């Protein structure tokens, strides 16, 4: 042992000596540590959703998390039944409704029990049928009272006409807002007209027939259908949330399989969307992305090593410690932070590219020693002392830069800093621990086979002076190179500020996901977007106040809340007395035994005209579903041309012909039945009993009241896709004009971006300071430390410029990894500095010749680690792969071209001292 060795070198030397002689024991030590850390791996949870990455310091995020945990509504899985493949609209509607009914039954089977808490296939009208009038606002109640105060046929039609003329005439906005409701009511009205026609013909109308028609007219369609009725929607309330990682994938898969099976039996399609489904897709696609990236990175890196070293045992000698280092990182993460998210899991894959650098340095050193004629043991010892010292300093610098992420405000970035730092240290430690004994095992095998180890490496083809051409060029024209590089940097700096931020979370998901596609389809077909805003409140008065204000906003399609079911004491009194008077009024009207034909004709003519006018408005307002529904009743086609005979036409003929005779007995009977049945239904609806929250249908209660019963949810559906364009700002600005309590994935996504930008900036500044201090400590020269930072800073400017020019955006995944680049990107300049200080002035060509190839190799492996994300289907991973690979490639170019040129200019042309102050 050399007496001049420092403490670190002595330890390395001793370890090299002992481990090559006791390679079995040394490997057992590594195995034992791996087994211990295996407990950590067993505790590790893979939380591969964006939800698991949400920042913890934002009120909006805290509200959102509370909603997800406490309201099953937020986890609702939207099952979209798509019957658009059926041409006949009537058949499509019927098939879709059949599938909804069948699927509602299917989801009651045992296999779904662990995953489903309730299913909403159609709207539960039971409460409305009993308390509908008490739940109606006083103005609307007075309107309904006017409509229903005389249920004899002619007055009933007269009041329906009055209502249409006051409510809808010339008001296409109202018609559009209430299109679904209006379609259902007009369908019921169309059926009622048919019954009147049949009665006019003398046919007897059965009770059940009339009951069905009146239900349809009074209460509408209970199914949630698209604008053209070819698609239907079901809501499955899962028993888990997006945060129940163990249930998320099997649960959503099972529900999805059921939906697709039942739909395919009727030859239509079904798909799932909503936050929970998107969460499952994130988990699956990020998992797939990571698997592909890991395999790709490992194969490429080890393949590269085989090519370079021409040594087929390299994949084992470097690959085993590399994977062991990964296992250690996973184990430590499991023991300390218990989880990996998309970002930290991606880092683990990237670690393959960084960890292998240590193996490259150690193996290169060993090979050079053997080529130089050293025996096996000496070669291992020397390589560990020479290369080991350097890589320890390098790794500590990088790890220190990573650990500075602990200054971040949010746990997400702290976790990344921890995993990244521990990853580097684990790889470093494992490489030093395992490569000497693995080389010894190889040597042992070669000797056993009768081969002499020291001749084996004659095959090694590392052309160590491959970069000498660049070195010569740098020495020849450092100023020209520095000026050219500076101009390039300045050009990119002009664009650097334009780099965009990805604020659409859906654009970060995998391309072609059904859940994301259905998100868009829902906006197009149902006129509502699944990703709206949510508000929680503990005060029902506030719920109503906010709901009413928000419902008036032009960017809001609909508001769902308990406001529709909340009646204050004052309102009870007001509505109660109005309803009691209504019952008295109903009692005062007797069923008429006659029907005035002339008046009936007049009201039917009026009704037809009202429906035609509403058809005109629907036509101009592009309300196709309404145009078709009204067209079926009035016999008008889209252009307003009369194309078929209708109940109206036949009734006009019959009634005009019989104007002197009067109506048929069947018509009188129908009038009597309508009177009785509607009277009965309205009286039931007019209950003045108090409505408590317990009386709400279970799906509404479960959706809008928290599990602990203390808070209430308001759900706001936007009119357009809230992720896209300027609409997002309009929606959120209008919401903020009413309340600042809104939350939802859009706002939470903004918080993620904000967090990433703020913490990313903060962590970057700290990482830069840490790296600068380490450089100052290492080189003991402030000028050299500053110069060494230049290529790194220039690479950032260039990266931002390229991103702005190519439209690559920062997102909350790739922006957070930027501070890691500081730790990685500085390495090359440090290596060049060390060599230049050793070789001296005028020797830059030698410096580049000796270090260039090694730097290229280590950069290449690191780039491979990050670039392995580029083929990933998840766009967040792909963009991270592109940004980081690009950044490292740029950093490499600046390190080997710009940095040496600056060193020559500063040290040799300007004569500034860059030597350590100790040596001055």
């Amino acid at each position, binding site marked *: 042992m050399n007496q001049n060795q420092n403490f670190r070198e002595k330890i390395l030397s001793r370890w090299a000596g002992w481990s090559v002689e006791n390679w079995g024991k040394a490997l057992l030590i590594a195995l034992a540590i791996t087994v211990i850390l295996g407990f950590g791996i067993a505790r590790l949870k893979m939380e591969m959703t964006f939800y698991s990455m949400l920042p913890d310091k934002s009120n909006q995020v805290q509200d959102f998390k509370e909603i997800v945990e406490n309201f099953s509504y937020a986890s609702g899985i939207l099952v979209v039944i798509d019957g658009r493949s059926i041409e006949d609209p009537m058949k499509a509607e019927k098939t879709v409704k059949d599938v909804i009914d069948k699927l509602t039954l299917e989801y009651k089977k045992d296999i779904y029990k662990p995953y489903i808490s309730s299913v909403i296939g159609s709207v539960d009208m039971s409460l409305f049928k009993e308390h509908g009038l008490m739940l109606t606002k006083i103005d609307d109640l007075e309107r309904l009272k006017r409509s229903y105060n005389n249920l004899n046929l002619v007055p009933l039609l007269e009041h329906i006409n009055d209502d249409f*003329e006051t409510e809808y*005439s*010339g*008001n*296409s*906005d*109202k018609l*559009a807002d209430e299109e679904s409701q209006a379609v259902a009511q007009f369908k019921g009205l169309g059926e009622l007209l048919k019954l009147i026609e049949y009665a006019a013909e003398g046919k007897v109308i059965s009770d059940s027939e009339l009951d069905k028609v009146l239900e349809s007219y009074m209460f509408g369609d209970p199914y949630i259908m698209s604008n053209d009725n070819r698609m239907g929607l079901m809501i499955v309330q899962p028993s888990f949330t997006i945060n129940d990682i163990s249930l998320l994938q099997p649960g959503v898969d099972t529900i999805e399989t059921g939906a697709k099976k039942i739909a395919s039996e009727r030859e239509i399609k079904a798909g799932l969307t909503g936050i929970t489904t998107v969460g499952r897709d994130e988990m699956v696609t990020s998992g797939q992305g990571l698997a592909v990236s890991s395999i790709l990175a490992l194969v490429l890196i080890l393949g590269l090593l085989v090519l370079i070293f021409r040594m087929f045992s390299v994949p084992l000698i470097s690959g085993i410690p590399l994977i062991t280092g990964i296992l250690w990182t996973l184990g430590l993460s499991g023991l300390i932070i218990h989880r990996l998210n998309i970002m930290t899991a991606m880092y683990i894959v990237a670690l393959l590219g960084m960890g292998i650098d240590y193996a490259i340095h150690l193996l290169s050193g060993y090979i050079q020693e053997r080529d130089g004629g050293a025996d096996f043991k000496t070669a291992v010892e020397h390589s560990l002392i020479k290369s080991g010292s350097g890589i320890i300093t390098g790794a500590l610098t990088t790890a220190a830069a990573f650990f500075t992420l602990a200054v971040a405000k949010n746990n997400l970035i702290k976790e990344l800093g921890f995993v990244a730092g521990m990853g580097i240290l684990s790889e470093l430690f494992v490489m030093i621990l395992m490569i000497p004994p693995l080389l010894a095992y190889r040597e042992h095998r070669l000797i056993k086979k009768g081969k002499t180890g020291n001749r084996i490496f004659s095959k090694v083809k590392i052309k160590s002076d491959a970069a000498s051409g660049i070195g010569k060029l740098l020495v020849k024209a450092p100023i020209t190179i520095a000026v050219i590089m500076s101009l390039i940097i300045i050009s990119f700096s002009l664009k650097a500020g334009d780099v965009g931020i990805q604020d659409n979370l859906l654009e970060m998901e995998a391309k072609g996901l059904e859940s994301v596609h259905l998100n868009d389809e829902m906006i*197009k077909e149902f006129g509502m977007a699944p990703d709206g805003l949510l508000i929680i409140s503990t005060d029902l008065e506030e719920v109503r106040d906010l709901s009413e204000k928000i419902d008036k*906003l*032009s*960017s809001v399609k609909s508001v769902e809340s308990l406001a529709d079911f909340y009646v204050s004491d004052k309102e009870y009194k007001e509505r109660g007395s109005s309803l009691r008077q209504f019952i008295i009024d109903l009692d005062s009207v007797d069923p008429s035994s006659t029907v005035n034909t002339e008046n009936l004709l007049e009201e039917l003519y009026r009704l037809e*005209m009202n429906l*035609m*006018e509403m*058809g*005109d*408005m629907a*036509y*101009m*307002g*592009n309300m196709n579903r309404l145009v078709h529904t009204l067209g079926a009743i009035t016999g*008008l086609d*889209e*252009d*307003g*041309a009369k194309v078929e005979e209708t109940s109206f036409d036949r009734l006009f003929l019959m009634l005009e012909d019989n104007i002197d005779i009067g109506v048929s007995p069947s018509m009188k009977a129908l009038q009597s039945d309508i009177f009785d049945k509607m009277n009965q239904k309205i009286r039931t609806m007019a209950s003045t009993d108090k409505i408590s929250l317990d009386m709400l249908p279970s799906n509404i209660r479960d959706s809008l009241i928290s599990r602990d019963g203390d808070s209430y949810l308001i759900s706001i559906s936007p*009119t*357009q896709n809230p992720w896209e364009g*300027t*609409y997002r*700002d*309009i*929606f959120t*600005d*209008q919401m*903020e*004009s*009413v309340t600042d309590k809104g939350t939802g994935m859009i706002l939470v996504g903004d918080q993620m971006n904000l967090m990433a930008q703020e913490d990313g900036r903060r962590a970057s500044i700290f990482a830069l300071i840490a790296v600068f201090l380490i450089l100052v400590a290492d080189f003991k020269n402030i000028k050299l430390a500053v110069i060494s930072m230049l290529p790194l800073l220039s690479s950032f400017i260039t990266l931002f410029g390229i991103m702005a020019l190519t439209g690559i955006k920062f997102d909350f995944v790739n922006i957070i990894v930027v501070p890691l680049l500081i730790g990685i990107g500085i390495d090359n300049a440090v290596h060049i500095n060390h060599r230049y200080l050793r070789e001296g002035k005028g020797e830059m060509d030698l410096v580049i010749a000796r270090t260039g190839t090694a730097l290229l190799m280590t950069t290449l492996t690191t780039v491979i680690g990050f670039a392995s994300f580029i083929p990933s289907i998840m766009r967040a991973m792909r963009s991270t792969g592109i940004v980081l690979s690009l950044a490292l490639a740029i950093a490499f170019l600046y390190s080997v071209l710009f940095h040496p040129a600056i060193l020559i200019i500063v040290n040799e042309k300007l004569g500034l001292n860059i030597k350590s102050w100790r040596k001055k």
Partner: protein
Amino acid sequence: MRKILISLLLLTVLCIGFLAAQTAQEIVNRADASFKVDRVFSTSSMTVYKSGEAQPVQEIESYTMQKNGKSYSLSIYTAPRRMKGTANLMIEDDLWVRFGSTGRTRKLSSSAKKNSAGGSDFSYADMGDSGQGLSEKYTPRLAGEETALGESCYKIELIGKNSDVPYEKMVVFITKDTYRYIKIDYFENNANIKSMTFYDYKTVNGTDYPFRYIMENHTKPSRTEVEVDVFETDSSRVQDRFFTTGYLESIR
């Protein structure tokens, strides 16, 4: 001395503010002049695009007049077939609609002026209020200068003088050299809900008028384009008798 200085400073600030307000008012008045012409007859084609898909082209004959300080406007649809004969009559805040399909006329409530006209992105108020000019109901404030549609413009904020105005705020862009409206942003609940842009200005009887304008709805995937085919001011085709419900009912 200090008090005098402060007073002078305050006075200067107030004067500058007053002058700026005057300037904004003058700019809007000059731009409004194009729309304040009397007895205008025009024919135009209106196309509504829903989610980028063109709906049937609506062809409209319009008549406007100012009389005794009142604004009158009548729009009659001549196409498509389904809308032929449908007409809107506005006299100040009163609005009537005549349906072509039934021949019936309905008086709408004054609040209906904010509703969409013919399924387009224009409200009845957008279509009928132009004769008065924007300065009538809004207080202007110069908000700076900006380039809009490639033209150097004054940017002026118009705040509703009372709560009856259709929009709480508008931001208008008026060209600095020709005092033409280039763009109007309409605001509701702090958000720009739709924008109208003006193109193809032509001079008719010494008045500049846009022969093409587009209303883009920012809360719905919809936009409406209007192409003016004929534009006449002081037109003999505009007759007082047109602006009565009796005439409305007689339209065929």
